[in-house]
């Protein structure tokens, strides 16, 4: 079907829809979807926002369907509505972006402080991991084997090759260093 034939078909369905033919209206709305999606994609790249624009155009078409004159081509009428709604959407999006900032943690924050413990625990774990990574190799290894993996001193000694005494000293120094760094102002 050529563009002209398609436009005539849409115009006929629209005229029938104006007269109350619900089946013709449903056929028309389904048939124009690809056309609307192409027009919307010319104005925005985000697929979700494109679909929002398409739905907005469908709602507007429904609201102003009495303004279509069957003697005139249908596609320019539809394209004008789509253009207008796409511009409105871009403006709305621009205004929102100018006024709002995105905070990934904000989505996980609840009014009840107890509900936020998971987020706080994640933050604390990330901070502690950074401090542990900054420790000397021997201290970090001793700490991970004895405190994180909860091995006995003998098992840790066999894995690391350090003596039991050296492991005790390394764990003690590592914990002391972590305490000092955690208390120090950032």
């Amino acid at each position: 079907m050529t563009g002209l034939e398609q436009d005539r078909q849409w115009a006929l369905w629209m005229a029938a829809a104006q007269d109350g033919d619900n089946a013709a209206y449903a056929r028309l709305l389904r048939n124009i979807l690809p056309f609307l999606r192409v027009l919307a994609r010319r104005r925005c790249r985000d697929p979700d926002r494109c679909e929002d624009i398409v739905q907005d155009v469908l709602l507007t078409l429904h609201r102003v369907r009495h303004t279509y004159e069957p003697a005139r081509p249908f596609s320019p009428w539809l394209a004008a509505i789509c253009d207008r709604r796409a511009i409105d959407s871009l403006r709305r999006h621009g205004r929102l972006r100018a006024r709002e900032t995105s905070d990934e943690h904000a989505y996980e924050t609840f009014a009840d402080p107890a509900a936020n413990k998971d987020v706080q625990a994640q933050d604390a774990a990330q901070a502690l991991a950074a401090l542990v990574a900054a420790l000397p190799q021997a201290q970090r290894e001793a700490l991970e084997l004895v405190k994180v993996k909860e091995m006995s001193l003998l098992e840790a000694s066999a894995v690391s090759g350090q003596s039991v005494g050296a492991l005790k000293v390394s764990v003690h120094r590592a914990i002391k260093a972590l305490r000092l760094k955690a208390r120090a102002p950032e």
Partner: protein
Amino acid sequence: MSRNTEDLIADLAAAAEPVRRLAPPMTRALLWLGTVALICAALILKLSNLSLFAERASDPRLAVELVSTLATGVAGVVAAFHLSVPDRPRAWALLPAPFAALWLSASGLGCWKYWTEQTAHGWRLGASSHCMVFLLGVGAVLGGALLFSLRRARPLQPRLVAAVGATGVAALAAFILQFFHPFDVTLIDLGAHLAALSILIVVISVVGRPGLA
């Protein structure tokens, strides 16, 4: 919007009642202008001094001013009706511009012509305040009637439609004023007219936007 598009189409199709088609914009504009012309003609015949008006209109400069004022009004109204439907180009908004330029030039020329007289006798405030009230009153009535007629089209660009329509209505009010204005405008009069017309355009545009949306 998180609704599924297919569901939306099903809902819209189910809710589609028959609608009464809107007449073409030119037909609607001519109908509106014809109605206004009939009412105004009746009032002018009854209330104005037509012989004095005819004498003044014999001045070519005033005749140009009158014709351009009326043309600005008609062009503004016709453009507003065209802009109220989705598929008419935005260039319709420029239709009143050349006539408005001619109208303001002709009015300005009148002020310049009488400049020496005015400065010799001091600034003549004349009937400026009455003119302002007349322009605002007539303009408000015509503006309300125009917005009411445009409302059915539910324009996609209500601000633009209201602004262009307001320009037309302001010009029509200025044209009608000429039948009740038996003297040439001074600079002060012109300023008062322009102030009244600007107020009209701003108010109708501001009120018209939510009214038409």
